[in-house]
């Protein structure tokens, strides 16, 4: 195997991890666009959705039927979470809401452990084993599949944000809830919708990555950090940015881990940090984010 094929193989691995980060980063961006907060529990909600899918399949439902059911359950679940857990602290300082999501994180993680134990679960593979061989570089079907689905979700979100009236409404709500309310927008409904959609995107993410990462309650904990990195890098309000950010983070950390001996696999987690710092120092709003203009 030549050095070039080697390098390309590492790039493919990096894209594979990057797609995993991007899938969750999309949900983070979505919730941020709708509500203006960072949701620490996003990964755990995705993990919970994945368990729902697993439970359905384990009880005999075919996977392709279980999937839409899971997405619907997640949507409803996300709305319910907003209504029960987030609504009561609406209007409190923003950090209060963030800490509520931290509490939710701890709660959901422990709950999943209580119900399904910490044993690794056998999650059905949606994509066939094996893969393509492109001039000596192996690309798994699962990597391609995840990348494809992430691209589709990204496209849908882009359309939602830019080309629908609900996109406009939700931007209004995220920008200034009280003004939005004054102009007749039902803010509560929009926020519920945001949580529902984010939970659905999270469910897609969980179901996608479960065959690769293996399903157990801490499955998304590690992904969340990288998804934060991806969203920060890309700018917290752009779905395209989230995906590009995720891929950059994935490729960069894989390559430095593999080729820069000083850094090595143990310190590769520092690489996204350096990139983010560098990018943010030049563009504080992230690669694709829009600078907030504040009227003083």
């Amino acid at each position, binding site marked *: 195997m030549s050095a070039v094929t080697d390098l390309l193989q590492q790039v493919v691995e990096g894209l594979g991890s990057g797609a995993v980060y991007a899938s969750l980063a999309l949900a983070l961006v979505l919730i941020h666009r709708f509500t203006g907060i960072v949701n620490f529990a996003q990964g755990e909600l995705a993990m919970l959705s994945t368990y729902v899918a697993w439970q359905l399949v384990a009880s005999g439902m075919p996977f392709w039927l279980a999937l839409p059911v899971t997405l619907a359950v997640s949507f409803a679940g996300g709305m319910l979470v907003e209504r029960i857990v987030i609504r009561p602290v609406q209007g409190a300082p923003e950090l209060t809401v963030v800490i509520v999501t931290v509490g939710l994180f701890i709660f959901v993680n*422990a709950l999943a452990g209580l119900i399904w134990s910490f044993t690794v679960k056998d999650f059905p593979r949606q994509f066939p084993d094996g893969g393509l061989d492109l001039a000596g570089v192996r690309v798994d079907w699962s990597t391609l599949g995840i990348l494809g689905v992430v691209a589709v979700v990204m496209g849908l979100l882009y359309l939602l944000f830019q080309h629908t009236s609900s996109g406009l409404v939700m931007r209004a709500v995220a920008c200034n809830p009280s003004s939005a309310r004054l102009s007749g927008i039902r803010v509560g409904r929009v926020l519920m919708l945001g949580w529902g959609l984010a939970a659905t995107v999270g469910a897609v993410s969980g179901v996608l990555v479960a065959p690769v*990462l*293996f399903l*157990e*309650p801490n499955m998304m904990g*590690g992904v969340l950090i*990288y998804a934060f990195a991806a969203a920060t890098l890309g700018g917290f309000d752009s779905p395209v940015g989230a995906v590009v950010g995720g891929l950059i983070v994935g490729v960069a950390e894989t390559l430095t881990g593999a080729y820069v001996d000083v850094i090595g*696999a*143990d310190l590769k987690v520092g690489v996204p940090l350096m990139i983010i710092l560098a990018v943010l120092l030049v563009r504080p709003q992230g690669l694709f984010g829009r600078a907030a203009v504040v009227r003083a």
Partner: protein
Amino acid sequence: MHKTTALRAAAAATAALLTATACSTQRGQDAPDTAAGGACKGQHTTGITDDTIELGGIYPLSGPASAYGTISKGVAAYFEYVNDKGGIDGRKVRFIVRDDGYQPPKAVEEARRLVEQEKVFAVFQTLGTPSTAAVWDYLDKQKVPQPFVATGASVWGTDDKHPWTIGWQPNYVAEARVYAKYLTDAKPKARVAVLYQNDDFGKDLLGGFEKAVAGSGVKVVAKESYEVTDPSVSAQMASLSRSKADVLLDVTTPKFGSQALAADARNTKWNPLHIVNNVASSAAVLKPVGFEHVQGVVSATYFKDPADPHWADDPAMKTYLKAMHEHAPDTDPANQFNAYGWAVAASLHRALDSMKCPTREGLRDAVRNLKDVKVGLLLPGVTLSTGHGDAFPIETMQLMRFKGERWQLFGKPVDTRKEFGPLTN
């Protein structure tokens, strides 16, 4: 106004707290209970009477390591089973479980609570190297036995300043020696790639392996680490595959074990002999990968895996399964950590039986003077042995290879003590 209300409330709260605790707790320095007479005179009997023994365990029931918390259920089930049969030498066991969330400060707090408030006879067990290291000085000073800690770091056996603490499971170095011996015999020219967890467990096992193969034809040609917080090890596996090594030594915990096995199966261009370490060798780890993908994988073990159909008719396994259904119905008996808990509790039972004096000193000495003690869930040929200069209860492991849908033991149990000599610091 604001502030005075707050202050008053704070004062009221403090007063309430003080009065509340006044009734329950006092800082009394009550004289330690000691044995009255005979050969045991003057030894400490806190937590043990003629018909009870109090034991306290500290496990991560919450937090990132909560997968191991279920060990406490295996232990508790064993003690309940024994209590139903009349207890240990007529003494009923009360087993108190506390949660440290895998955080050393919480472990210290809980150890102090168990010793000072619950007045336990012994702290059985602490889990994980950090938590154990954080409390062993304290327990040593208090002269409270800390038998059979649930971590395989070799330091528990090589250290000579903490006589009250001892390990149980084969230490990671001993396990590394088993693989080293297997490779030097079966593949004397093997080039080995190592995937390891970047903590005490991974480092200890890797270091032990490198030491054990030093001077032989077996060479470590590549090593990659991962953090417990990493989402996946696929990048590390891709790096290792560049080495084209003949052997992959896979030093991972269950989830990462599954990931590494799956990554190895996906990569059709690199087919090393895959050695997976004991922690990640349960059938429960292999099953999600697909049994067809893990044929020929090698590992080593010392206790019977409840998920392995091989042991379905084993009497000790039957007792275990029956008792688990009865006493711990909400947990999965096929989980190897439950079986681990059961086996270690049974080992403690033997040690308690062999105490010369029913005292803390008696237990401390008993766990350091075990002679080929057999325990039901341990593999045939694996026994507990300790003595002067040897503080490692289990140092024998048996190799196994995965075939069809189960592990098949092969070769003779490897006694690393005999093969490599005693382990020193």
